[in-house]
């Protein structure tokens, strides 16, 4: 394992290259020496023509397909490396536009990685132009069901009557009246949710370059007790502030109905790069 005169340690067939993302070769990309998916190897910029790969060496013992499947079942390993992947990209995102690649994109050799960059250079450059100067922001909307139900009484005569009957009844009848009120709330909430999603997404798109809606997450996954109504991702100019303003306006519009909004990011534009590059 002794390495001579700056030659990288590790047998050639024992290590591969993990690709985090692609940047323009002349971009002022900043790297953080301490963060990578394999602590033994830091992230490097491998320039190939007008593009550069953000990549670091990894042990193939850890990252070849067979072993990777095992690792993916190790929560600590998975979390550490997902965070490392993201941190590498976020660090770069602060000073340069980046095309993010999916977790665990690994090449067997530097030559193969460079060949990919030169063969797919025009595709990648196109993607890079699309996200140039832009970042992704996440916007989620949640509704507090109890607050929504409480407000319903002030907006709907039917709800007011049902609520009053439930409050005035006793025993089994109270239960039945309560159920009827719950069913009305569920029906109204469903209708309201569809409205909120449509109106909010349109409003946010007007403040963004592009936008997309993702799957809703249950309270167990989202970590919030409120129900998720909207899970959007928006491509915006870095540092623009328009989307945040649009979110604030929506929050004011729907606050009374128990809806709250949450903005996350800036993220690398994960949702605005093609799913595949290099399809034959």
């Amino acid at each position, binding site marked *: 394992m002794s390495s001579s005169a700056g030659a990288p340690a590790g047998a050639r067939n024992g290590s591969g290259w993990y690709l985090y993302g692609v940047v323009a070769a002349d971009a002022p990309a900043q790297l953080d020496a301490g963060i990578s998916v394999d602590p033994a190897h830091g992230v490097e910029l491998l320039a190939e023509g007008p593009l550069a790969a953000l990549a670091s060496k990894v042990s193939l013992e850890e990252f070849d397909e067979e072993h990777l499947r095992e690792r993916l079942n190790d929560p600590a390993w998975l979390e550490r490396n997902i965070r490392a992947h993201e941190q590498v990209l976020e660090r770069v995102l602060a000073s340069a536009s980046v095309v993010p690649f999916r977790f665990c994109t690994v090449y067997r050799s530097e030559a193969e990685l460079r*060949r990919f960059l030169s063969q797919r250079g025009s595709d990648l450059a196109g993607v890079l132009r699309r996200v140039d100067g832009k970042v992704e922001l996440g916007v989620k909307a949640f509704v507090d069901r109890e607050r929504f139900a409480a407000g319903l009484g002030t907006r709907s005569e039917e709800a007011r009557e049902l609520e009053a009957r439930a409050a005035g009844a006793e025993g089994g009848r109270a239960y039945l009246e309560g159920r009827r009120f719950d069913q009305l709330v569920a029906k109204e909430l469903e209708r309201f949710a569809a409205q909120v999603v449509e109106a909010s997404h349109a409003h946010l798109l007007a403040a963004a370059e592009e936008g997309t809606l993702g799957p809703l997450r249950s309270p167990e996954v989202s970590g919030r007790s409120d129900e998720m109504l909207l899970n959007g991702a928006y491509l915006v100019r870095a540092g623009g502030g328009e989307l945040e303003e649009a979110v604030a306006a929506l929050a004011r519009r729907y606050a009374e109905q128990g809806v709250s909004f949450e903005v996350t990011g800036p993220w690398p534009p994960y949702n605005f790069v093609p799913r595949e590059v290099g399809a034959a």
Partner: protein
Amino acid sequence: MTDRDRHPLEQQVTLIELVDRVLNRGVVLSGDITLSVAGVDLVYVGLRVLLASVGTLERLEQQASGNGNGKVLAAGGPRR
């Protein structure tokens, strides 16, 4: 590195956001040049593992099998 510690809720939320992006999105390479695992598998495996790690998978499964029509307010109507 505190990976094995129990994380505060906020950090778990961020982790799920990360999973949604790092595992579900980003460019995937096709062809024979990489070792990257098929996207769909990775998403499934990743989410499953992470949920299990925060102790919620069990509850999710219970919910999926026991409660098909969503949540309703407790009988008696809203508070406040």
